[in-house]
Every structure is written in structure tokens, then in C-alpha cells.
């Protein structure tokens, strides 16, 4: 088992450039309640910011699924789970038609549009997101 997480650079799906704010937006952290109450959409800017944080995912093959050369990868937390699915398919050299099922904690399959940061916050084990994968449906 590799203990070092490879940087999953190939996983960085191109993000459209963030358009500049329409006017001079102060950092949301420094917003005063009165600024927000005058223009609540200012506060949204903070929540729109993509989290540049990287998190570690750990892949575990189930049943007769092929094993990866290494099983720890770093991934941008702002990615959708879809990016994880696509990455694993590439690593395994699987075609779109080859069946592949991914689970978190051997328990459930998140929807492809769920955000990795949310999954890590809610379901991490010692800070890692454990992803089991197999070639036939395992947990319903």
C-alpha cells in the first residue's frame, strides 16, 4: 500500500475562469452586518468561491475489480464526484460501457454532482474519503 498520495493533477477538470465581480467587492469575511443588509448578495460571493483545498481519497477494490498501482490520491475539494468516477475509469482503462460502481465507506453511492468537499466533511475516516469500487453492484 502506498502511503504517499499522488497529486491527482489529471483530475483537475477545467473550470471556467471566475468572472471578475461587477464592482469592488470587499472580502466577505470583513463584511459588516449593515453592508450585507444593504446588499445581501455580497455575502454570496464568499460562498461562491471555489475551495482550493486538496483532500485525500483512498480507493479500495472490491471483489474482482482490478487493483490500482497506488490507492491514495489528492483531489481538489471543489470537484464533483463525477471527476472521481472519470479519473478511476481512466486509471482502470475502462470504457464508458464497462460497469463500474463506486461507494463511500462500503455504504452508498453519491450522485455524480455531489461535491467532494461535502462528502469529505460528512463521511471522512481519519481525514480520508474511502471509496470502494467494484464491477457489479455491491451495496444495493
Amino acid at each position, binding site marked *: 500500500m502506498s502511503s504517499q498520495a499522488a497529486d491527482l493533477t489529471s483530475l483537475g477538470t477545467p473550470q471556467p475562469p471566475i468572472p471578475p465581480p461587477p464592482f469592488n467587492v470587499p472580502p466577505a469575511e470583513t463584511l459588516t452586518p449593515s453592508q450585507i443588509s444593504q446588499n445581501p448578495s455580497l455575502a454570496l460571493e464568499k460562498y461562491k468561491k471555489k475551495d482550493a483545498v486538496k483532500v485525500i481519497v483512498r480507493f479500495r477494490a472490491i471483489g474482482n475489480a482490478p487493483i490500482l498501482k497506488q490507492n491514495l490520491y489528492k483531489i481538489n475539494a471543489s470537484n464533483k464526484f463525477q471527476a472521481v468516477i472519470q479519473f478511476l475509469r481512466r486509471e482502470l482503462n475502462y470504457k464508458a460501457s464497462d460497469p463500474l460502481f463506486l461507494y463511500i465507506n462500503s455504504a452508498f453511492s453519491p450522485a455524480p454532482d455531489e461535491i467532494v468537499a461535502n462528502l469529505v466533511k*460528512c463521511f471522512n475516516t481519519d481525514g480520508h474519503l474511502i471509496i470502494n469500487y467494484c464491477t457489479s453492484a455491491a451495496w444495493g
Partner: protein
Amino acid sequence: MTAPQNPITRAIWDGTLPIKFSLDSAEAAELGAKVLVEPYFLEAPRCSYFPLLTSQIRKYFVDMTNMALNFIGDDAEIWYDVDGIPLKWHYPIGLLYDLHTGYRPDSNSPPPLPWPVTVHFKNFPIDKLIRAQAIDATQDFFMSMIKEADFLRNGSTKKVMNLSKNDQTQLLDGLWSSFSQKYRTENYDRFWSINYRLVTNDGQLPKHIPLRIYLPDNCPVIQEPIAPSDENGNQLTLGDVLHQILPELFPSPLPTENAFAAPVIHGVIPQLNIPILWASQNLCYPDNFLHIVVLLET
């Protein structure tokens, strides 16, 4: 089996939205429709999903045009949009309405009803929507959500996995038939007699509350592990949770100071002082998640 009497879960189950389905005009011409196709009006349950309505919508438009010859695709290829924004088929209809209309129930203007939705038979936007192989995928996505909710409550999916085959069938059948007006009570009982055990967690305090928060302007969906009470054992309220997660929008957990942002659940602005556990057990969608749309003052 009858479900425990709960007027709130019953009212949510009975909640419907009048929707006006129009065929995309460019596609109508491509598909061979010779005349302007009349829209299809339907009163859809807020708790249901668009793919469950697809077969009757398809039948209507196929009957209205000579499209039967030109469209042989699977129901899963049919998709919906509002103002050019594709609607996520795996979200409940009521959530999509609250999210896309951004309608605040405390505003002075009337709600945008019937809700105008465009139907597409072609050009499935694979970059924006999840492409399902078959319409049955809706059921798989729904069960995955229920399991995810169970995992948040218990740190495992044992409660859902321990449902008998019969219980699981009853749960799904109740929800899948929910658009049948005639058997509404029967379907409510079928669904809620099983779901009651899940949302109340068999009387055990859940570790975390399954909830998601949706903000305007394409902000990423927020999902965090929220405990039902603080370290001193005091129950957290909806206001406490919103204040904790969105301090800029909810500078205080108290209702009076939060004039500009409001949570909307099932088209209603709930009081901020309701315990979050109560909200989870009574106001969750059938997928067991409390979906909270936060809207700003317009």
C-alpha cells in the same frame, strides 16, 4: 399498514404544483410536428420526481403530434428546462420549484403558477445533467439518498439495509404511485409506515441531521455534518444551524434580526426557532433529507 398520524408529513405529501409543460418549439418542428402543439397541464406532487411524470408527458406529446414515428428513444432521454436551465431529474420537483423560481412566500407578488417548464426529446445536455441509462435510475438515486441520510444519522446504513424486501418495495411503491390522486391516503400510509422508522431513527438520537442548503446564483450546494444538539445537550434550532453555517446571511439565530435572508422548505418559510431534529423528522423530503433553499430579499 397505516402510518402514524402526522398532519405535517401528510400536508407535505399532499402538496402539489400546477405545471405547464410546453414542447420546445425548435424540436417540435424537427420531430415533425406540423402545428403548434398545445401545452400539457399537470398537477404534480412536490415530493415526486420529473422522470415519474415522463411517460404520461411523452404519451401526450406523441398523441398530439405525429411524433411517434420520429421519436423512438428511451424515456430517460427526455429532459426538462426552465428559462434555459436544465432541471436536475434526481431532485424532488418541489425543491426544483423553490430553487429555480426563487419565489419568496412572504413577498407581495403572486407565485409563478402554473410553473412553465419546457420538455425536450432531443439534445440531452450531458455536460449539465446526469445521463441515466434508463428511467429506473431514479429509483437507484432515491435509494442512495436514503442510505446517505441513514449514514449521517447512524454512521452506517444498517437501518436501511435491514429493511425487508417487502418493506423496501412498499416504500418505493408508495412514493412511485404518489401522483395517483385517488389512492393518495393508501400511498401515504404505504410510504410513511416504513419511512417513519427511518426518520425517527427508531427513537435514537441521530449523530447528524441529513440536510442540504441551496443558495441563489449557482453557489455550490452545502452539506455539513450537523449534530441535533450542542455539547451541553441543548437542542439546536433551525436558526442556530443557519447561523452556524451561513453567519453572513444569518447574523443571529433569532428571527427578528434576519430580515434579508429566509429559508424556504416545501414553499414555506418555517420559524427559525423550531428544533432542527423536529424539522428533520417532519419537514424532510421522502429521500430523508431536509432540503433548505435560502432566498434573499428581492
